[in-house]
């Protein structure tokens, strides 16, 4: 025997190593989808125009106030975050035409026909000391109330949930159930207590 065979390298472990690398990358990197609660800010104030004080009927406003201790009050009543959705939903829907809840105006909407659109506006005021988490939770609950109403309206008129509609129908539902939040300038009661 003249030539000795070189022993083959065991490459089985190589694949183990690359597997480890693979799982490491799978866990650490994320297909970073940007997600969140989208909102629109009101356009900037014009310098030369006076603030127009829009007279809104008291029944059309739901005053939501979040203080620096993250407590929520709705029209003066202190409530828990879990009750906010129900309150907001009742406020926007006003199923029994209660005179203390917002009035509705019948509007012709493409694809739906005449629909009583609520004139209700949620006025959201937060304190400078409110935590961002609570702020997002409040926005989330309000969004949830509107989304549920949109789903209900959508089921009634199109027989499908809002998500399954095409964009024209979604626009019709958006007009029928508007998301109207108006943010008041923040107050600063808790600046000493919260820091």
């Amino acid at each position, binding site marked *: 025997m003249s030539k000795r065979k070189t022993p083959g390298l065991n490459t089985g472990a190589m694949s183990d190593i690359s597997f480890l690398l693979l799982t490491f990358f799978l866990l650490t990197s994320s297909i970073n989808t940007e997600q*969140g609660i989208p*909102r629109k800010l009101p356009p900037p104030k014009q310098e030369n125009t006076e603030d127009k004080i829009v007279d809104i009927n008291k029944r059309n406003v739901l005053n939501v106030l979040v203080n620096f201790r993250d407590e929520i009050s709705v029209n003066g009543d202190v409530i828990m975050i879990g009750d906010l959705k129900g309150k907001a939903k009742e406020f926007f829907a006003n199923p029994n035409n209660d005179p203390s809840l917002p009035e509705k105006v019948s509007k012709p909407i493409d694809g739906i026909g005449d629909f009583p659109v609520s004139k209700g506006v949620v006025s959201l005021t937060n304190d400078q000391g409110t935590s961002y988490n609570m702020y997002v939770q409040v926005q989330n609950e309000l969004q949830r109330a509107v989304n549920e109403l949109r789903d209900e309206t959508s089921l009634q008129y199109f027989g499908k949930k809002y998500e399954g509609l095409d964009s024209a129908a979604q626009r019709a539902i958006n007009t029928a159930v508007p998301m109207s939040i108006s943010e008041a300038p923040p107050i600063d009661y808790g600046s000493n207590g919260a820091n």
Partner: protein
Amino acid sequence: MSRFRKEGKKETPELNMGSMSDIIFMFLFFFMVITTMREASLKVHLKVPSATEIQKLEKKSLVANIYIGKPISKNENTLPPGEVSVQLNDQTVKAEDLKKDVREFIGTEKESRSMEDRDRLTFSLKVDKDVQMRYVNTIKQELRTNNALKINYAAGKRNKN
């Protein structure tokens, strides 16, 4: 006659594992390419709140991020009273430059997009959940005066209970 008899135990041929690692490496590169690391390294602690009604933003290229949170290192610039930093691009902002920097940030972000995309540009506020609203309100005010009206409160997904 041993010539026709099978010789003892026949060894099963070993599988060639070499190409296995090639396949896995290909996987690895595939994932490294499609997933994106954060383009800016974070200078602030960030734990965004979770919410149920979140929506996905349409396009990642149409999003500009503003990070607000507690600074990771002590050397970062903070806003008074010194607990919270605002990060634009990959730098934290000095308190006295806040207005100027936000304006410039909005300007450069808008300029780097084409005309029709400028109105669809969303500013995503990635804010730590423990941050007080005063900092968020300041940034929102600046966004508003600079006519950057589409914003997004970044939040994680939480299931409805």
